[in-house]
């Protein structure tokens, strides 16, 4: 169970506004990437985000480029989870592969505002907001295993006996 402060965004938040293209071929550490997180959508985010914060958004979160830094920078910024009505396919995979929990939730999401607090019960698939409980579907076992191992690389290291 985690409890986090909400950053609220709309539909179609694309990877260019999460992590601008001009930085994508520069060798940056995840911590450096975090300083550019959401730079072209909300410049206040990178300055004020705190570990454990949660991003709540509308449909198609992470659409656009395959750039994995879009997930890496949010994880490094301390984001505990992203809750959205739907995710773009590549971002969804990149988030899991970086150990960043992504929760698809259709119901109740419009009620959640910036600065609200949400609780997430990952085990039972429940988001709690102002006393209301909203259920989200469990991830497939193969996908959950990657998230539980902390991302794709530790997961594969384990599978290959390099753990």
């Amino acid at each position, binding site marked *: 169970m985690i409890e986090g402060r909400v950053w609220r965004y709309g539909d179609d938040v*694309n990877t260019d*506004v999460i992590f601008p293209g001009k930085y994508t071929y520069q060798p940056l550490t995840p911590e450096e990437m975090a300083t550019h997180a959401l730079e072209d959508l909300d410049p206040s985010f990178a300055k004020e985000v705190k570990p454990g914060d949660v991003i709540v958004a509308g449909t198609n979160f992470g659409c656009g480029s395959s750039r994995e830094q879009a997930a890496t920078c949010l994880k490094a910024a301390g984001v505990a989870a992203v809750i959205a009505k*739907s995710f773009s396919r590549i971002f969804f995979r990149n988030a899991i592969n970086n150990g960043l929990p992504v929760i698809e939730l259709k119901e109740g999401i419009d009620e959640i505002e910036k600065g609200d607090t949400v609780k997430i019960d990952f085990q039972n698939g429940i988001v709690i907001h102002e006393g209301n409980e909203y259920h989200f579907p469990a991830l497939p076992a193969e996908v959950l295993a990657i998230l539980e191992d902390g991302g794709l690389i530790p997961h594969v290291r384990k599978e290959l006996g390099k753990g």
Partner: protein
Amino acid sequence: MGMTFAQKILAQKAGLDHVAPSQIVTVTPDFCMSHDNTAAISKIFAKIGVDRVKDPERFVIVLDHTVPASTEKYALGHKEIRQFVAQQGIEHFYDGGVGICHQVLPEKGFALPGTLILGSDSHTTTYGAFGAFSAGIGRSEMAVLYATSKIWLKVPESFKIVVHGRLREPVTSKDLILRIIGDIGADGALYRSVEFTGEAIAEMSQASRMVLSNMAIEMGAKNGYIAPDDKTFRFLEGRAVRKYYPVYPDPDAEYEKVLEFDASSLGPQVAKPHTVDNVSPVEEVAGTKIDQALLGTCTNGRLEDLRLAARILKGKKIAKGVRMLVLPASQEVLLDALAEGLIETFVRAGALVLNPGCGPCLGAHQGVLAPGEVCLSTANRNFKGRMGSREAEIYLASPATVAASALTGVITDPREVFEGGAK
């Protein structure tokens, strides 16, 4: 019940008789593509603890995003990639200047019917125009493919998009795909396998089909398949790196949705800032002043695009105050354009011709926009901040609309200037 293209090819690659949507399968791609991001991927690969790339022959690496290097950091990235390629014995390596990955893979014969191709670039969907199942993945996944040659994929539901009628010149496949995305939305085909079919698609050149598959990702699709036909097989003659076996959907396959469009009534379309689905007929935005016109990218930098633009620009001058950038999609396109005199037409009209590459499209290299500037581009994305300043605006259109607008300095209906004729 028969299977869709996605079901059929993923079943085949997973060694199963039948797969259903939502099923997770483990597959080995025929080919894997990466570009300048190979520097970062090779570093992730090193963390896995495996010394050798398992099957070097599966990997195709094309330097195209920041070529030639404009900063020491980019130069270092390229150097690391060249070292990695040499150490690991990766033979399918194309250094900067050969072209944009999504043009180079088809030209060099990797985009083959019935193959599974994954690339660490979202526009990897382009190879669907050759009857491949091709999709974008992340850097970590590509690093794991180096180590294991295996990846999991979920079998998607499928949409069929039927396009009736024929496009009327100068309306192109770019106008068609903008209209489709405008109608169904940026998440309209989220996580779906899209199959394009119908008279308009059958009539289209192979290059025009690539525009549809390229932009399938802009409506959220996992892949954008077009049934390979004689045009496809002819394109691949003398190019294909190996024998291929086309895969077609079963006639009784089950589609989640069938969407129908009419090409014959379609006019030029423009996607307005800052989303690709913010689409209007060109008439509604005509007169909008532009500072930069961009012809090129993995969407519309092919010979037929350059030909169409050159027909409009020949013997004329680009408007004062407008910068026009032309980037052929590959060396092969550049050579053909030179032979046909198209490059001379562009230069005489006042355009700036750049080397084949991706640079300006993603704001990483060349042609970036200042605050307040407007660019009309043949690219596939108009997201805020993509081409430089977040205070700049990007409009997307076909090569004909971009060329016509470069002449006037404002967004212009290409039917007004095409062949000097009226509408």
